[in-house]
């Protein structure tokens, strides 16, 4: 008989990956949807692969191939940590299946272990997508060395463990501290945002200090960056660059120890935190007050905003790009084009090129903020309630796009204003930045809800499954990365035109999606 944690893990993965729906359903629509999702994901995956290979080639061509694995470990660990933190404890606590699992004859340790393992596997998949092509390129460029391959495999496979353990521990601590509070979800979200902003600010400051400490030596700069982003990666670097074999074993030992410690520690408090979260002793006696009447669409939009702010996992995954954009906007306040030592006659030309690149980058960040791509899935088992209401499917879908549009618009326009001022932009760049902010906010919002309408996932047991591991999210985030990076890169060579083309395509698609909602139907 398999170990119980294996059975738990199997059930979690079936739920997470929607395997049964794809395999067992005899509904032709389901099959078509699954095929469509696989084709779309494969397409996005292929383009992403192309990017990773290009980046790896650029690294290797500069003689930095040896630094690539440690850099991947370092950056992946940071991203895994942030993603885990953004789950807001949803991986472990307050899941819909808690009662079922808690009643099973299985130890809490095994439950925690199985949940951590499912999170590990998802994160590992992400790390592998980056690490495998990059490693192939590195070996093709620098020559194959067997022991290095072994060390890289070990590093890649254990690297998500420590960030997951630390991120989930912080989330667990936050869940435990706020369990009895009325606005615990909002408080958790605010704490996580503060933490995220802090980490990003530290990363920026590390980058700048590394730059100043190492001067123009790119190799030393990357070595410094690896260490400063994720300290344990120093051991991977020692093994792969300096040939110190024990380094990789120390890295493995630290990661695994953190994982074991996490499971042991959290399993002690697992039941207590879950009970505290479910008791929700925050009831208040209600006294009748005057109520405000609004139109149905306004009521739907209000509900969507409340939903967004009710879930740390939803909020944080949904608005990451906007937060980064706001951070970037404020960081611009400390930037002065004149400090770069560029001759005055060249400033206008360079600022215009930087301006176009910046506008492309803004589109990327806007695309990363897409709560609408999970808004329909999050209706979950209560979707019948909404679909039975006397409003059209179009109104429901549009109301779900509004928070994404508003949040992206605010951050996009704020960034545009500060960016254009600092870049000493002319009227063309001003108009382009504003138009891109508006068009991409609308495109992301409508594109997200359109994809969610096509690929909904209602049968989730925790919100993270609907928010983070959904087909729409993967497509939106990666597609916006691809489009944004491509537009920014092309803008460096061709100026205004790539951005204009990107805006025009996005505008046409936005209008097409809007019109397609006239025929939308929402059924349970």
């Amino acid at each position, binding site marked *: 008989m398999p170990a119980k944690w294996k059975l738990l893990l199997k059930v979690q993965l079936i739920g997470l990956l929607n395997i049964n729906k794809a395999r067992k359903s005899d509904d032709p629509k389901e099959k078509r949807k699954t095929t469509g999702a696989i084709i779309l994901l494969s397409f996005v995956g292929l383009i992403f692969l192309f990017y990773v290979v290009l980046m790896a080639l650029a690294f290797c061509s500069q003689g930095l191939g040896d630094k690539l694995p440690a850099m991947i470990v370092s950056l992946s660990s940071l991203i895994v940590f942030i993603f885990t933190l953004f789950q807001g404890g949803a991986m472990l606590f307050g899941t819909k299946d808690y009662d079922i699992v808690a009643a099973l004859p299985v130890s809490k340790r095994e439950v925690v272990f199985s949940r951590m393992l499912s999170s590990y596997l998802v994160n590992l998949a992400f790390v592998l997508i980056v690490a495998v092509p990059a490693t192939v390129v590195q070996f093709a460029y620098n020559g194959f060395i067997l022991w290095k391959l072994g060390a890289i495999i070990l590093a890649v496979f254990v690297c998500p463990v420590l960030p997951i353990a630390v991120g989930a521990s912080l989330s667990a601590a936050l869940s435990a501290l706020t369990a009895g509070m009325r606005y615990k979800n909002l408080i958790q979200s605010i704490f996580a945002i503060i933490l995220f902003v802090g980490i990003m600010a530290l990363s920026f400051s590390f980058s700048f200090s590394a730059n100043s400490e190492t001067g123009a030596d790119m190799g030393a700069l990357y070595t410094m960056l690896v260490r400063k982003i994720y300290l344990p990666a120093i051991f991977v670097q020692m093994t792969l660059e300096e040939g110190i074999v024990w380094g990789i074993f120390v890295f493995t030992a630290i990661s695994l120890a953190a994982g074991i410690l996490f499971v042991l520690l959290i399993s002690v408090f697992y039941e207590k935190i879950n009970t505290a979260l479910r008791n929700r002793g925050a009831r208040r006696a209600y006294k009748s007050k005057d109520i405000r009447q609004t139109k149905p669409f306004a009521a*739907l939009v209000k509900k969507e905003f409340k939903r967004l702010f009710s879930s740390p996992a939803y909020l944080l995954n949904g608005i990451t790009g906007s937060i980064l954009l706001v951070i970037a906007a404020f960081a611009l306040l400390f930037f002065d084009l004149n400090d770069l030592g560029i001759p005055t006659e060249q400033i206008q030309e360079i600022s215009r090129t930087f301006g176009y690149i910046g506008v492309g980058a803004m589109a990327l960040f806007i695309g990363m903020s897409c709560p609408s791509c999970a808004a329909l899935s999050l209706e979950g*088992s209560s979707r*019948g309630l909404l679909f039975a209401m006397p409003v059209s499917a179009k109104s429901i879908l549009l109301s779900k796009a509004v928070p994404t549009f508003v949040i992206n618009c605010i951050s996009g326009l704020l960034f545009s204003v500060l960016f254009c001022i600092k870049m000493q932009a002319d009227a063309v760049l001003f108009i382009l930045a504003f138009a891109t902010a508006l068009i991409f906010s609308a495109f992301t919002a409508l594109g997200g809800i359109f994809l969610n309408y096509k690929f909904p996932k209602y049968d989730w047991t925790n919100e993270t499954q609907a928010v983070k591991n959904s087909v729409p999210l993967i497509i939106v985030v990666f597609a916006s990365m691809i489009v944004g990076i491509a537009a920014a890169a092309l803008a460096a060579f061709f100026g205004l035109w790539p951005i204009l083309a990107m805006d025009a395509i996005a505008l046409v698609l936005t209008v097409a999606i809007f019109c397609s909602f006239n025929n939308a139907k929402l059924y349970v």
Partner: protein
Amino acid sequence: MEKKILEIRHLRKVYGKNKVAVDDLSLDVCAGDIYGFIGQNGAGKTTTLRAVTGILGFDAGDILIDGISVKDDPVLCKSVTAYIPDNPDLYEFLTGIQYLNFLGDMYGVEKTVRQERIAKYADMFRISGDLGSLVSAYSHGMKQKLALIGALMHAPKLIVLDEPFVGLDPEAAFKLKQVFREMCDAGSAIFFSTHVLDVAEKLCNKIAIIKGGKLIASGNIDDVRGDTSLEDVFMEVLENDAR
């Protein structure tokens, strides 16, 4: 002649390629009817109720609510209907009063009417003091009561309920029956599924029995029941089919 509030005409719903959930089902629910819909698990009750409320598409037939086809104008049909599913999965991130206000806005219930009805039904079901709490803090029964208040708030012409008495305390169940009768006296119609045959027998004036997606019997309860009890009729229907 009785005014028909709900007309189901040759309804057919197939899941996947060939799983027929409801087959050629026709029935009428008139103003003033309390219509019970009974059948075994998987007989097609919930599928029929969901199709009536417009949240589930169907493959053939038509459903008219107050003379309007659900296919032609689903929004108008929904505006005169209320639906309470078997499991009250309400919006847990809203407070009780926020949830009711949300429904009030969606159904366009005028402010003073809304306040009056919320006060009336919340007092009746004894959850007035809890309306300021998050729905996530409610017990199953309280959620059921909140869902009922939400359904009654816009005085619908047709109330569709899936197992409405599950989870309610005896007092709330008694009051719900009272409300049903009041609504029907005012010209509304109630169409609900239940497994509790005693309730159906005492409360309903009409009954329909569904089995394997097909309507086995329907009509006035006295006609369906004859000289025996509803339980006997139901068991007889099952046994006849088993033979």
